[in-house]
């Protein structure tokens, strides 16, 4: 493997990992802080991709599609939390699994009714549709670099939100002692609603920005959901920092696995999870 090829795999692995982080960070917050197992999280990723495709073909602009799509996913998150999720906080995980599994079926059916069952492609915006040459016959697409940069910026924004803002303090306080936070006048239900909406929007946004790379197809949320649960378990449930480290680990492991040991590539992620759990059963990091 020469250097340029290695560099490309490295960038691909990082980009994939950063994208996973967007989906997994919401999943880990919703699971770790609100205590909700959200199987429908992958559906939000799919929904984002379909929104990007359909809105981009309407507006002829991926950026406009994403801006509009983010607003829609935030509203969807708020509505879902208000209508369904908040009635399941006190319930056993089994009920939450049933509810959110049902949501997957509903979202897939709605997708089929609204957008059909075809596979679609989303063009990369013209401005970013070129590649940087690395060697004579290898080059790297700029769009992937832009995605990675955007993911990094969002990760930084999330870090600042949680570590530096008043809302972040409330989220952390609520995650360690919900009752005490309430007794200090914090409207924990509102905080939970915001966390849920943020998680939905992040997963949807990941689907939107990745649509030009992955194409848009039915059931595309399933695979992402499973990998993201692996990320959450490796990183430690409820830890955003852990989600970042685990996402990058898995992104790199899967990318290099496919190139170096293609025979066992499908297993690598799970072997990694097993190894981490043997070493640290609670995952790499603790809750917020």
């Amino acid at each position, binding site marked *: 493997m020469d250097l340029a090829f290695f560099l490309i795999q490295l960038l691909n692995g990082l980009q994939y990992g950063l994208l996973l982080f967007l989906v997994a960070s919401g999943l880990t917050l919703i699971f770790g802080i609100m205590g909700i197992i959200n199987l429908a999280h992958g559906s939000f990723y799919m929904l984002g991709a379909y929104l990007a495709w359909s809105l981009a073909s309407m507006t002829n602009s991926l950026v406009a599609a994403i801006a509009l799509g983010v607003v829609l996913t935030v509203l969807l998150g708020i509505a879902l939390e208000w209508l369904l999720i908040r009635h399941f906080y006190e319930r056993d995980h089994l009920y939450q699994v049933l509810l959110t599994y049902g949501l997957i079926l509903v979202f897939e059916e709605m997708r089929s009714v609204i957008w059909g069952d075809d596979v679609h492609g989303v063009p990369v915006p013209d401005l970013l549709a070129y590649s940087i040459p690395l060697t004579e016959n290898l080059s790297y697409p700029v769009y992937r670099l832009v995605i990675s940069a955007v993911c990094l910026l969002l990760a930084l924004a999330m870090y600042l939100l949680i570590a530096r803002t008043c809302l972040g303090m409330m989220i952390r306080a609520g995650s360690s*002692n919900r009752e005490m936070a309430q007794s*200090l006048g914090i409207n924990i239900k509102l905080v939970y609603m915001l966390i849920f909406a943020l998680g939905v929007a992040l997963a949807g946004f990941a689907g939107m920005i990745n649509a030009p790379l992955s194409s848009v197809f039915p059931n595309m949320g399933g695979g992402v959901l499973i990998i993201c649960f692996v990320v959450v378990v490796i990183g430690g449930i409820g830890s955003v920092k852990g989600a970042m480290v685990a996402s990058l680990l898995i992104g790199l492991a899967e990318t290099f696995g496919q190139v170096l040991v293609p025979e066992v590539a499908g297993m690598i992620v799970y072997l990694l999870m097993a190894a981490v759990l043997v070493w640290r059963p609670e995952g790499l990091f603790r809750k917020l």
Partner: protein
Amino acid sequence: MAEALLAARGLHTYYGASHILNGVDFAVGRGECIGLMGRNGMGKTTLLRSMLGLVRPRQGSVEVRGRDMTRAAPHAIARAGIAFVPEGRGIFPNLTVRENLVMAARPGVDGRREWGYERVLATFPRLGERLDNGGAQLSGGEQQMLTIGRALMTNPDLLILDEATEGLAPLIAREIWNIIRGIRASGIATVIVDKNYGAVLGLADRCVVLVKGCVVFTGTPGQLADNEEMMQRYLGV
């Protein structure tokens, strides 16, 4: 008494099948200091939690300033000017001391800003030396100061202290009592639950004794101290 700050009427609260509060009436007036007394398991903490919205009473009502808040969320009751220092302190270990203090800071119901960051640090100088420490790194006494300081930062009209001096060294406990005395003198109403009956009797305007979820005595500390049967049978003194 004019309109009560906090009033409970006929509260019945259950934990599962066990009947913890059996029709309790309880009221706190503005600036009043109440000693809520009784042995372990008689329902003191449950009464506090029922009034704070943390457990749902099955019957009865809770009013704050005459407004019905029986089914209100705990944060709404807190924002009506009632601050809680719970048994076990409830420090957020994943927040720094500074964050613990400022996370809930707000002006009082009537817009008062008597208690701010500087005043709390002046009252609890030891906290000022540990602002960047995590909440879990503090000693028991410091944690208690932090919880009281955090409650004061919400500029409450009523401060409820559940076992504020439990498990503290006598010297630290005395410091906490001095602080509570200062808070009381500043005009904030207080409800105090504490095993140190002597200190409670010395501080309270009125004492309420709970036995098996019923109020068996309401009166001044003097009347309670003179009532030998009450002191021996129900308080074990």
